[in-house]
């Protein structure tokens, strides 16, 4: 997918000005956050399960080569094929070759963030193969020519009336006077329209939440059942999965599943967790005749063995997005690539480069809520800081910031001088603010005071007060 991460500041200004978006974003805290908290409270072992889930992924990543070997052997033993792709280009070409080989003209798709990452739909269309998204949220944004704004709720940036307008525009074969005001009538209409698409499809493409090495199994987790119709009805099922989806055993995946839905939607378990192992067996009356797995690296192996390896524990639950004050304010599109929010701010620079995604690790208040809620205990703030350091070292930080940090660095290495100057500064600001205790404007601080008053220091610095109070 093309990135607009480089123009993040402009994206943010547009997001703030977008009234529709701001209205839609109000649903995020009320929906996801309360439901997750309730699910966590219902399971006393929740935090210990997070520790166990983290340990499973750490072990798997440290032995990823061996678990991948085993997984491939198991898939091939039941008649499936595995294709290895190091880049997005290679993955697109592989999938198109497979589709052409199967004589496919239409493919249905389950929700896959990796398919977004490699911009699969554009490539399929260019090869005269029609992709049909079947997850309701994905279907809606496909109609609009947009990308997902959330990794589990792709259309969270939209309101009901926008969806109604799109359905009336695209489903022009249906009666004009039909009633579409309720969410239920929109869901029903999508159900009817997409039912035909499933039945007409030649190939079903899904992502994978997990790959199990023990059994050669791929897993999808959905609530709608769209992924199941996608992979069961056509003659071929193509699974698109990245290397970090591997887990050793059924027991290990069970542990991680216990924290996935609870963290994502606050459900005890998603409606459908489906384990697929190879193509149709002798005697099976249904299921795909062909089963292909496309394994994608696309920059991930470069994270192994580095301080960013922990990011590969991510199970894409979206909890860090939901709890992030920055995401809540600007939504997902402003981040400018597939993965928004804190996980994206760490992951995106790894995949597309810090030169393009440098703004993202800076879009954080470091409040730490992302790490607090992460089911895999990924130290997201620490890794955002690491990216900021790399950005600085690569001389990508703006000149004014580098100059400012240089000046600060000079003084902070000279404590006596630093204390003297901060003392003078604190008293000056305090005097300027007067009894109100706030400043309406201040030279060099326009970025702050344009939007809100700057609280002034109370008069003395912390160090001065500490010295005075020490017995």
């Amino acid at each position, binding site marked *: 997918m093309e990135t607009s991460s480089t123009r993040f500041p402009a994206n943010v200004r547009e997001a703030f000005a977008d009234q529709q978006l701001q209205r839609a974003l109000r649903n995020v805290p009320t929906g996801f956050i309360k439901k997750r908290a309730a699910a966590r409270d219902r*399971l006393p072992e929740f935090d210990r399960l997070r520790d166990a889930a983290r340990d499973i992924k750490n072990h798997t990543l440290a032995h990823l080569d061996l678990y991948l070997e085993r997984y491939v052997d198991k898939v091939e033993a039941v008649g499936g094929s595995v294709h290895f792709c190091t880049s997005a280009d290679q993955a697109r070409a592989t999938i198109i070759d497979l589709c052409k080989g199967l004589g496919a003209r239409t493919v249905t798709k389950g929700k896959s963030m990796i398919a977004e990452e490699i911009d699969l739909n554009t490539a399929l269309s260019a090869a005269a193969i029609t992709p049909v998204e079947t997850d309701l949220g994905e279907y809606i944004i496909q109609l609009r020519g947009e990308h997902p704004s959330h990794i589990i709720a792709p259309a969270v940036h939209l309101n009901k009336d926008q969806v109604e307008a799109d359905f009336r525009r695209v489903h022009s074969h249906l009666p004009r006077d039909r009633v579409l005001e309720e*969410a239920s009538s929109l*869901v029903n209409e999508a159900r009817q329209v997409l039912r035909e698409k499933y039945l007409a499809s030649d190939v079903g493409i899904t992502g994978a939440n997990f790959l199990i090495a023990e059994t050669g199994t791929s897993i999808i987790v959905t609530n709608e059942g769209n992924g199941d119709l996608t992979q069961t009805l056509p003659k071929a099922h193509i699974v698109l999965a990245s290397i970090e989806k591997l887990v050793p055993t059924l027991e290990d995946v069970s542990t991680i599943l216990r924290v996935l839905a609870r963290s994502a939607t606050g459900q005890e378990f998603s409606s459908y967790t489906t384990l697929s192992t190879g193509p149709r067996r002798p005697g099976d009356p249904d299921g795909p005749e062909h089963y292909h797995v496309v394994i994608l690296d696309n920059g991930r192996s470069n994270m192994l063995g580095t301080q960013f390896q922990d990011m590969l524990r991510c199970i894409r639950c979206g909890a860090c997005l939901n709890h992030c004050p920055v995401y809540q304010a600007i939504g997902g599109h402003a981040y400018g690539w597939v993965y928004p929010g804190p996980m994206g701010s760490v992951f995106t620079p790894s995949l597309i480069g810090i030169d393009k995604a440098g703004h993202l690790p800076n879009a954080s208040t470091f409040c730490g809520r992302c790490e607090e809620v992460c089911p895999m205990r990924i130290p997201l703030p620490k890794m955002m800081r690491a990216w900021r350091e790399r950005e600085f070292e690569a001389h990508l930080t703006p000149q004014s910031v580098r100059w400012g940090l240089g000046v600060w660095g000079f003084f902070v290495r000279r404590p006596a001088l630093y204390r003297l100057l901060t003392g003078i500064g604190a008293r000056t600001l305090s005097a300027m603010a007067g009894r109100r205790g706030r400043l309406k404007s201040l030279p060099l601080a326009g970025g702050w005071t344009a939007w809100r008053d700057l609280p002034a220091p109370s008069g003395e610095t912390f160090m001065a007060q500490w010295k005075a109070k020490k017995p």
Partner: protein
Amino acid sequence: MTTSTSKDEFIERLRRSLKVSGDDKARRQAVAARLAAHAPNLVPERATGDAAHRTKLFIEQASAVQTTIDQVKTAAAIPAAVAHYLRQHNLPQALRHGADPLLKGLPWKKGAPSLAISEGRADPADDVSIAHAFAGVAETGTLILCSGADNPTTLNFLPETHIVVLEAGDLVGTYEEAWARLRARFGEGVMPRTVNMITGPSRTGDIEQTIELGAHGPRRLHVIIVGK
């Protein structure tokens, strides 16, 4: 396939990044041991208890996600229970099941004389299906169904109403217990083509986070628990 990378080259990249070699015996042993042991990790307390506790918990958890539950004493009572459920919800008296011996052997003519029964995979026109669960998991009110001629996967997703027969003896506490039974039935490291874990009817929250049932799969999921 010429477009993709070879397996060896792909895995070698991982090894370079991890700074490991493929013939490190200790690493191979660690992996082989974990796969062979497939030991359970931490398992929630809530799922431990006797059969009565499991049944109660299963019903609680399943009901919380809009699964409806019926309990019958013997399999012979299933046809009448099915006919009653369909009448109650004003649904067509027509039903599809697979080659499952339990379902095929039920006294349908006697218990539900007006019910039209057909056998095989689901047809897009089918309104109601019935399947026999491999297991039920009390922990989250989850059903486990295995693909094959006995219970074809399409029965679980195409019809608007999905009825599932769960034998009380197949109701376990945790997912891990279900996997142990799966290995006992199919063998170590062997899986049926599809294993469906189903927890409630199909739903979506994609429009303004309002939960709507019946997104693409069944609108109704009804479980009949048989026996004690």
